[in-house]
């Protein structure tokens, strides 16, 4: 690639990069054959899997499961949130069977701050220990997950707050749990979710002049050589 072309490519905005490389490569018969063989193998595997799935579905008709022992815990959290915060505070609630029936509640963003206060301070729940905060980019939306536990009763809960991808923003939980501080900074840095109410929201892992948020699914590095 000529020096000039390189310059030009750097000047282009993110999405436009690579558009200049549309020349067709010379056809390599060996490579073509390999590609074809790989495609055939893929198709065969997919067909086999489909067949196996179908058989499995026929063999085991789903049985109604008994309700989880943690169902009452979940219902109590939802009840309290609805009663003391707002009727609309809870978007969704379920037990996460994969994770030892962890009670999981999706709280609406607008009600998240008072909900956080309630979860921590309510005598019955007393989720005083916030053990983990994760951010997830689901491509359709973003999600912040707060895993908390009550040290007295050892009950756990996962609280999720959903937000749009564009202008993602979730009310900060740092004024409620100090431990959320750096965790939220990390999510801000790597996923680009804003946390209004956070006392010190800056990048924490990446340099201050970094462009973009690396853990977003559509992240493209500004300088492809880094």
């Amino acid at each position, binding site marked *: 690639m000529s020096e000039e072309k390189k310059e030009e490519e750097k000047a282009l905005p993110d999405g436009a990069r690579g558009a200049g490389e549309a020349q067709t490569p010379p056809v390599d018969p060996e490579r073509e054959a390999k590609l074809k063989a790989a495609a055939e193998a893929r198709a065969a595997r997919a067909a086999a899997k489909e067949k196996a799935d179908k058989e499995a579905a026929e063999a085991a008709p789903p049985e109604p499961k008994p309700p989880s022992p943690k169902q009452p815990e979940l219902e109590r959290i939802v009840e309290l949130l609805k009663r003391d915060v707002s009727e609309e505070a809870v978007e969704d609630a379920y037990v996460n069977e*994969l994770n030892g029936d962890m009670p999981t509640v999706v709280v609406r963003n607008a009600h998240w701050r008072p909900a956080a206060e309630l979860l921590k301070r309510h005598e019955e729940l007393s989720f005083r220990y916030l053990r983990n905060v994760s951010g997830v980019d689901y491509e359709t939306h973003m999600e912040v997950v707060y895993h908390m536990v009550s040290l007295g009763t050892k009950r756990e809960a996962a609280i999720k707050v959903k937000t749009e991808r564009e202008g993602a923003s979730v009310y900060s939980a740092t004024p409620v749990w100090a*431990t959320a501080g750096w965790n939220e900074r990390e999510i801000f840095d*790597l996923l680009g979710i804003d946390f209004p109410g956070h006392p010190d929201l800056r990048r*924490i892992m990446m340099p201050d002049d970094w462009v973009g948020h*690396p853990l977003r699914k559509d992240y493209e590095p500004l300088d492809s050589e880094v």
Partner: protein
Amino acid sequence: MIRTEELLLNVGPQHPSTHGVFRIVVKLDGEVITEATPVMGYLHRGTEKIAESLNFTQIIPYTDRMDYVSAMTNNYVLVHAVETMMGLEVPERAEFLRLIVMELQRVASHLVWWGTYLLDIGAMSPFLYAFRDREIIIDLFNELCGARLTYNYMRVGGVKWDAPPGWMDKVRDFIPYMENKLEEYDKLVSGNEIFLARIKGIGKYDAETAIDYGLSGANLRCTGVDWDLRKAEPYSLYSRFEFDVPLGKNGDCYDRYRIRLEEIRQSLRILKQAVRQFPDGGETMGKVPRVIRPPAGEVYVRIESPRGEIGCHIVSKGKAEPYRLKFRRPSFVNLQILPKLLVGETMTNLITILGGVDIVVGEVDC
């Protein structure tokens, strides 16, 4: 009182007592710290991003490099998360091997902490003693999996290698040896007046603050909060063994020191029982599908690493690679309280307090 000019002092990222590439910028009034700002990210490798394009077996070596002083527990938290998602059974022999290496690792990790902490404070020889004894554990691991620091030992469903003949005898011999050495350590250091003057009543906080800041491990237990995940939420085979959870009451550096030394003793106690109960035969790998694809959904698991609660949050879309993998790193969370502790302390105490938190920068930055 004489007013002195405010001084901005940069500590690290290459200062030897910052344990790696941790940097902290402090504002000093004379010798008293008025503000402290940690600056992280010098060791950020984007493990969580890299993991999104790797399958689970390929991620295991990356976990070794997070908390490189305690790689075995990091291995475990990842494989444990995947096993929880897939509902896999781990053969008893494999689970015993895992537990034994994790407890040996805890001893090794606390030894590194003990040695380097005293080195920070100004005692050279304890470091040499600690590393001499840690070397035995490192050699045991080397024999088991061919690596001294980054073991890559555990797999989803079991462990990679069975213990070679005679290995378990060496572990058995190590236990009384280490118990004797611990007494020696206590005689050498624990009663030393100069040392005690440096750490007693320094870096104090109460239980309420510790819980609010989400501290874990010795940093939480030094305030008297009885929260050790091996007891509170037993995983692996811990419910089968007898051991105590050492607690402090003042929440200062001295309590953290005592707890870590006592934890070595308790780990040896667990090891003694585990070696005795170790099954004679059996598989080291369970029945695991050829390609590991956890079902769609998410899971958060946590275990007690030497530094506190290490957690793994996996979001899966049913593929061989995780959709999102997040590690809750105890060093990162524990470090958060540091700026609060440092205000009003002297510069010399910065080293004492930072060392007392016990961080590994590979884990802070991940």
